[in-house]
């Protein structure tokens, strides 16, 4: 969706505020919000694309006003309440008011190391032949899906050069919508800055995005 998360090319946010010797977390609650989000991925049984979609569904004004871990927290609460794992009343009360739902995949301390080490690879066996080849020029489709997508607005309608093939990967658009993984070929496509931003742009710069096959068309 064309939400506030899709920031490439926006203006007016001001200088980049890099903090010297920055700590990993800036408050105790950030630690817990981070860990709760990771830990709930097991019993919650949502996937990373549903996680991202939940964060992106925040009203743009809220998204831009919240800090990073506040956005995570809002996303986590939404995912859990959608699945009936927790209610707003329970958060307000700070204690369960309904019986727990039966869940599997609770992340115990003993499983943390293995779960992190395995990660969640997204490469899958290809279900169709590869349509585009390295060196080909391709068009990023001018599409505006109302659901989750990973094709940023700033490349839509522009032509780039296909530079890498990464195999077939889980399609976020489908996975976020609960339609299954529907793996597709994943490519890297490089656009010149002038193609994206016009003649005044830096002639030495290019921007590459990773794009699934259905995001692209032959030129």
């Amino acid at each position, binding site marked *: 969706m064309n939400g506030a998360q899709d920031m490439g090319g926006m203006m007016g946010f001001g200088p980049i505020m890099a903090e010297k010797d920055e700590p990993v*977390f800036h408050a105790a609650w950030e630690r817990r919000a981070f860990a*709760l989000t990771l830990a709930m991925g097991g019993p919650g049984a949502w996937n990373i694309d549903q996680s991202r979609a939940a964060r992106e569904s925040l009203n743009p004004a809220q998204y831009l006003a919240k800090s990073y871990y506040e956005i995570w927290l809002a996303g986590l609460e939404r995912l859990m309440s959608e699945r009936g794992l927790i209610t707003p009343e329970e*958060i307000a009360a700070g204690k369960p008011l309904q019986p727990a739902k039966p869940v599997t995949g609770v992340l115990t301390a003993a499983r943390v190391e293995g779960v992190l080490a395995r990660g969640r690879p997204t490469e899958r066996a290809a279900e169709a032949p590869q349509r585009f080849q390295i060196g080909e020029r391709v068009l990023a489709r001018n599409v505006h899906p109302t659901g989750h997508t990973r094709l940023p607005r700033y490349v839509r309608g522009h032509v780039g050069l296909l530079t890498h093939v990464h195999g077939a990967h889980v399609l976020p658009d489908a996975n976020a919508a609960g339609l299954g993984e529907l793996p597709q070929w994943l490519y890297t496509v490089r656009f010149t800055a002038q193609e994206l931003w016009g003649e005044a742009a830096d002639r030495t710069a290019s921007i590459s995005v990773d794009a699934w096959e259905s995001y692209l068309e032959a030129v």
Partner: protein
Amino acid sequence: MHDEHDHDHGSHLTDVELRVRALESVLVAKGYVDPKALDLLIETYETRVGPHNGARVVAKAWADPNYKARLLKDATAAIAELGYAGRQGEHMVAVENSDQVHNLVVCTLCSCYPWPVLGLPPVWYKSAPYRSRAVLDPRSVLAEFGVTLPANTEIKVWDSTAEIRYLVLPQRPAGAEAWSEEQLSRLVSRDSMIGTGLAKSPAEVP
């Protein structure tokens, strides 16, 4: 309940602090979450996983041409040789800086970042100013970080829009020809592996 942990016990808790505490209490009481697992997750990313991992990868690539070739060919496998793998680093690509090319990594859509080699991203990487401008005007972004490149250096920006995670292989600075891998790793800053910095010169390292 979870009051035995290192929370601030003061009387000035903010709304968000209270909310996260309440949330954790409910989730633990319902049996969805093991508080010891939370502690371990936090400890992992606060102390064990961080840019020192990536610095080892870069230093090895500088010191060992065969390793560098493996890293540029299959970064996931080469990085796993050093024991770094998993969450948010499942599919790695290394991109090499040279006199002709400078690479810069961003995630305009969220905060994608190669956790196993760099740890969790700094606030600026996740912030609107960086995400909006790195793709629009990378040279001005680099200048804000104090990186001024020759006008004809090609700038390649990598927007992490899928599950591919990018690691910049910075240029090896001159003057450290006789240094060991361990010494070389001290020249590798976090920002040099994102592309918003360069490797330090030997004179900068005590």
